[in-house]
């Protein structure tokens, strides 16, 4: 039951049409189409190797698909580059202090510089602002990476399992910041295997299996009445082959 069919694409926050990706001679994403109108969080779920990260990287422009189109707010994705940010599964931090990592993302903008202290406080890193970023704990590093992404004031935020193997406190901080961003109208596309997190954050869920979308449903429908066999098996904790 694809959610996209009943919506007017003109008002979609994200519209993906016929997206395919081949790497090393192997087709990894097959003719993916979906659109979503919400400004909340679209969770991308699926078993390992389903192509979730590849999809996110294609949407963000880090990988070029063989075919297909991506639009954000009705405009081609490549024209919206300045309005996107991404947080990677493993935080990529420059070899400098936490504050300097944020300064780097300011790219000369005084308005962004003024927001640094607030963001450091939001991610509970004020006291560690002048420590080398790569000496922070995993949770702190990921919070810093999220702060850096938010500093660029994106309209679309891509999150590739940013809370995987983090402590509950860090997960809570990150989830709160994402919800606040959603309330400000930021659209987030979030990869997660955490069903509890998906229930807390997601407005809708795109379920991928072997590079194909088997289901795109509102979150409550997905959890109470999944339509695809693969999603049912995934939610039941079965091995999805």
């Amino acid at each position, binding site marked *: 039951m694809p959610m996209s069919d009943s919506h007017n694409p003109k008002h979609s926050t994200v519209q993906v049409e016929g997206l395919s990706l081949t790497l090393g001679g192997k087709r990894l994403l097959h003719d993916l189409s979906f659109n979503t109108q919400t400004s909340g969080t679209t969770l991308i779920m699926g078993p390992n190797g389903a192509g979730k990260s590849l999809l996110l990287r294609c949407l963000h422009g880090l990988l070029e698909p063989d075919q297909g189109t991506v639009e954000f707010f009705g405009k081609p994705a490549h024209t919206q580059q300045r309005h996107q*940010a991404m947080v990677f599964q493993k935080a990529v931090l420059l070899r400098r202090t936490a504050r300097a990592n944020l300064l780097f993302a300011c*790219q000369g903008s005084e308005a962004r510089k003024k927001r640094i202290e607030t963001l450091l406080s939001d991610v509970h890193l004020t006291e560690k602002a002048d420590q080398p970023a790569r000496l922070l704990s995993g949770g702190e590093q990921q919070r810093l990476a999220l702060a850096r992404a938010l500093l*660029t004031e994106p309209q679309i935020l891509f999150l590739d399992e940013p809370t995987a193997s983090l402590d509950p406190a860090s997960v809570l901080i990150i989830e709160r910041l994402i919800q606040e961003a959603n309330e400000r109208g930021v659209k987030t596309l979030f990869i997660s295997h955490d069903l509890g997190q998906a229930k807390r954050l997601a407005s809708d869920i795109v379920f991928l299996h072997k590079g194909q979308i088997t289901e795109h449903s509102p979150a409550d429908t997905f959890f109470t009445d999944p339509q695809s066999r693969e999603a049912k098996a995934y939610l039941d904790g079965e091995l999805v082959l």
Partner: protein
Amino acid sequence: MLGDAFSEAATLILSGDPELFEILGLSIQVSLTALFFSIALGLPIGTALAISQFRGKKACVTVLNSLMGLPPVVVGLLVYLMLSRSGPLGVLGLLYTPTAMVIAQVGLITPIIGALTYQVMDDLHREYRDLFSSLKVPLAKAVPTYLWDARYSLITSVLAGFGRAISEVGAVIIVGGNIDHLTRVMTTAIALETSKGELAIALGLGIILLALALFVNALVTWVKTAGQKNAYV
């Protein structure tokens, strides 16, 4: 006999023997000048190779890595052929001058600095590439960022180049000619004095050369440790 030579060598060093320190001064001057030009060439070559994509990139990297192992006498011979009177640059009259020795050392250590820079930058580029792409960092900002963030590893590469330059003998003896008070450096002087049986000055220079090598290695270790302490390498 060896004890006497050591004792005489120590006296030469401690008394500040002018001939010995003239040789030391020229060695450092030639090697530092060569290092300066090799940094100016090697860092951009290594960086450009690491962050750009083009056909034949792997072949270029292979060539650069192979050049690291260039035999000094071959480099000396090539520079000699270029600078000799019948060579293409013979008109400049540079053969048997410190400049010729600098050119030979640049030929020797530029591939070392270039190849080591490539390795450092390639690793860093793989790590930062997606982030820079995501943040839309322009190349003009990305390159200085790579250089700054790789500074500890790059300093180590540069010091490795200096170590190679200061201890090299084959190339500089061919293009410099080991002329007294003009092109005689530590390594060529050690070779000459040893062949003459003048072990004291050879040992004196050998001790200084070893001390320099030790100093450079200690500096490499200190730089590495300083970088690791802050997770900057």
